[in-house]
């Protein structure tokens, strides 16, 4: 479980770092939507939205991940970048964990 958490955090952190280098297109779109959010917050929100959608498609989305994404979106409306980053990180991590869960050994076999 700890390994998965670390992997999920690395994925979230990595995507944020990569986004800083490669994601100028994404930044432009998000900045237009949330003019006063920092680049980091905009990217974190975009990343969380994408990962949560992937988990939903796989039928592996935790309600808590959805809740965290909603909180991130609410924080974005209030232009609170720090809160956006905090909630988006939780949403992304939990969405990853939900997807990883599908690969756990089957129970009751």
């Amino acid at each position: 479980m700890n390994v998965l958490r670390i992997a999920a955090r690395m994925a979230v952190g990595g995507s944020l770092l990569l986004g800083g280098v490669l994601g100028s297109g994404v930044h432009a779109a998000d900045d237009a939507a949330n003019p006063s959010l920092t680049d980091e917050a905009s990217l974190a929100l975009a990343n969380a939205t994408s990962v949560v959608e992937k988990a939903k498609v796989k039928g592996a989305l935790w309600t808590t991940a959805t809740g965290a994404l909603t909180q991130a979106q609410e924080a974005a409306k209030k232009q609170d970048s720090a809160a956006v980053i905090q909630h988006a990180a939780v949403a992304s991590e939990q969405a990853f964990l939900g997807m990883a869960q599908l690969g756990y050994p089957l129970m009751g076999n």
Partner: protein
Amino acid sequence: MKKLIWLISCLGCLGAVANVQASPEDDRRSVVQGVQKKFPDIKFEDYVHGALAFSPDAKAQYDAVMTFPPYDAEIEKGAKLWETSFKNGKRYADCFPRSGKNVAGNYPMFDEKTKKVVTFEMALNQCRTANGEAPYKHSDMNTMGLLTAYARTLSDGMRMNIKVEGKDALAAYESGKRFFHQRRGQLNFSCAGCHISNVGNVLRTEYLSMAPGQATHWPAFRGGDYSLFTLQRRYAACNQMVRLVPLEIGGEEYNNLEYYHSYLSNGLPLQASVFRK
């Protein structure tokens, strides 16, 4: 020594092959035998009572409720839906063998043409669309729920008789089986973790029922307000409780899950529209 290692490897491979090739009937027998071993005093037929089988008091309360079910008026509404003719004059009874009596136990069935599992609710909707009516939403308890609440009572007493024939049907069954045994949600539960591995144990003051028999008594009227729940609505509620965003009621994942889940109840009698806590 080498021969011994070779022999053990071969046995291991044979074991793995045997495990992979477990047939649906092997699965069902294994699950039923697990319950029988743990609870030899509970009769196979009583598995349809689920958690009530572990508590004579709860079963007595259930029997009292079922003497004069307070939700009879709801089933009557379902009967009215069933008996109302479509615009073309045909009725639901015209879409099913024996006018819809003793058919629900054959569902879900696998349709070789569409390569999909067909639930009883889907068959009801197919009847509607074939007769020029709009389909009901599977999650709408005021239409599909009520209709099913009555239509399934026409099969009370019928033995569950799910068939898995052909490789595509087996693939759908295996998909449902996988879902049943996979951990999901933040609480990290699986259906099997409760209803196969922990049958009869108490979780949050409730006994955990056995998987065989669970698919025989839906829809059910649940709780103090007798809310109507179809089996797939129950799946959604269960998923929600373990903090998983529920999947689509009537979607392929739940249909396959119902296929596997219902197979585990093969041989047990149906009794629809009962009361459950």
